[in-house]
């Protein structure tokens, strides 16, 4: 039993890694006032690029750089669409997600070399997990204690007043979306590194879960991290309990599969009203 417990805890850490990184990306984006449904697309684009470049070059560094680059580019496209073209943030995000899902599916089937021969072509997963925890702390500190963090909070809460105080909200949002891209890039690369090859839609909605965790965490780094761990824990529980009868009842795996989503839904119903979203979220 203790062994099982350890195993669940270990896989909690493993499974929540991509969520934490993506949620931090969402944190930067949403704190600056840009709703970011596109976390999913960035992760997927990054995962695809990581595997592709990793397989082509065999260099984990280049693979990582490629993943980060891809996600940053997607983040900047989201910035251009929402800030320059004034496209609704949710529509832009959904559009990007659909396009990226389509494009990566297209490539996955066409390019047969989209599979790394050895895991070494991508940085090991432990590198990313460490990053996830370190970066969560760093993000919390950055937002609470630096000029950049203060500007981020200010434009996210009130772009007009921030402009009055001499800030440039559009510029700050571009930067934030680039940072969000980097973080989602890490998340995508981690997902790629865990599996070693690319499968269409391999992010499997984890970008959305990360967003839910961010909201449950009240748009704060450490609570969001904890929410991600919670989701990871449920997922780990699901993997362990699958096919194991509990008190003599054989529960279907789908029940466990839907647990984290149901948990998110219930948490949203219970806590949403208590967490204040950045007041300027979605505003031009």
């Amino acid at each position: 039993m203790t062994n099982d417990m350890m195993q669940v805890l270990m896989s909690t850490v493993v499974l929540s890694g991509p969520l934490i990184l993506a949620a931090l990306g969402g944190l930067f984006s949403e704190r600056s006032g840009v709703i970011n449904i596109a976390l999913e697309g960035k992760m997927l684009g990054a995962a695809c690029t990581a595997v592709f470049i990793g397989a082509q070059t065999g260099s984990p560094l280049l693979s990582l750089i490629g993943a980060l680059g891809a996600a940053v580019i997607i983040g900047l496209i989201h910035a251009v669409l929402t800030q320059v073209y004034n496209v609704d943030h949710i529509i832009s995000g959904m559009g990007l997600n659909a396009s990226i899902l389509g494009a990566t599916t297209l490539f996955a089937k066409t390019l047969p070399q989209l599979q790394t021969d050895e895991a070494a072509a991508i940085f090991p997963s432990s590198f990313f997990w460490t990053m996830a925890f370190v970066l969560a702390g760093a993000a919390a500190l950055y937002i609470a204690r630096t000029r950049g963090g203060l500007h981020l909070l200010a434009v996210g809460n009130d772009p007009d007043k921030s402009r009055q105080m001499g800030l440039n909200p559009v510029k700050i949002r571009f930067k934030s979306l680039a940072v969000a891209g980097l973080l989602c890039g890490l998340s995508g690369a981690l997902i790629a590194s865990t599996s070693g090859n690319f499968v269409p839609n391999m992010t499997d909605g984890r970008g959305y879960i990360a967003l839910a965790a961010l909201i449950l965490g009240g748009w704060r780094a450490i609570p969001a991290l904890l929410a991600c761990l919670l989701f990871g824990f449920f997922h780990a529980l699901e993997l362990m309990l699958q096919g194991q009868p509990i008190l003599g009842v054989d529960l279907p795996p789908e029940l466990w599969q839907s647990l984290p989503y149901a948990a998110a839904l219930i948490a949203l119903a219970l806590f949403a009203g208590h967490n204040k979203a950045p007041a300027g979220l979605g505003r031009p």
Partner: protein
Amino acid sequence: MHLPWKHIWLTLAAFALIWLALVAVGAYPPEAFREMIIRSVGKPAAWRETLFQMTPLLATGLAVFVALRAGLFNIGAEGQLMVGSLASVAVALAIPSAFGMILAIVAGIVAGALWALPAGLIKAYRGGHEVISTIMLNSIGMALAGWLLAGPMRNKLQESTTTAAIDEAAYIPHVVDQMPFRMNLSLIIVTLITVGFAYWLKRSVKGYELSLVGKNPIAAKFSGAALKKVTVWSMTASGALAGLGGALMVLGDEHRVYMGFSGGYGFDGLGVAMLAGGSPIAVVPSAFLFAVISQGSDSLAQIQIPKGLNGVLLGLIIIVFAAYRAKKETHHD
């Protein structure tokens, strides 16, 4: 004449991306586009398939449109459609008759509505964002479908995870049946609902209040509109329409439900509604265009272009169109 260069650039960029994607997978783009057209509206059999696809697209498009009109993003049409189709197939299997068909349609509507209800309630009374809740409900709905299809509702005689086929007595009748072209009543049903909804929205007091809540919730509150009720009802109606889409797919075309049954119609519904802009009637041509693209790119598999192109196309269309709409709106101020 002042040309909207910003938007022309965006359109060109989107087009270039599509071109690039096609070249990258080894296709010659003009050829691919020509094939898409031919295979979607080029022959009677192609029309048949395209119109089949149009039914759920119109239903989910209208579903998303209703919610959007009240200021809500229903990302959950996919799950609502799936749950609706399962309820519908269960009823149709139990009562294999025309009466069963009617009940099955009702079952689909009710199931879809119930699957959207929590999102409406959480939004209205707890302030939880409907985008997150509908996405969660999608995942739960898919898990539910997975369990039902693998277990209780599975047709054990078949290898794949699918329900049994419903009896012919419960099929939605065809209005035209001259193979290779045929069309059943379901598309007409959804089109009539769309027209009726458009009239209701424009001419009824409740429709006025629905639009008011979506346009300016604060003014709606001051005008005596019941904000929370409108939120719950419009989200529920949205789910009902998506559920109807699922029921019509089962009873009109597929006659069973299997894993992957919904095939993304729910998500495409978002694009259909976006493309329609502010007009409910425009949902009809918008759904048709999506059906053409969807059918066209599905059939490209036959010339060795893998699936996925429709995602790229539709995603970019949504974005470009939203950019044009945003421009129009800022122009007003």
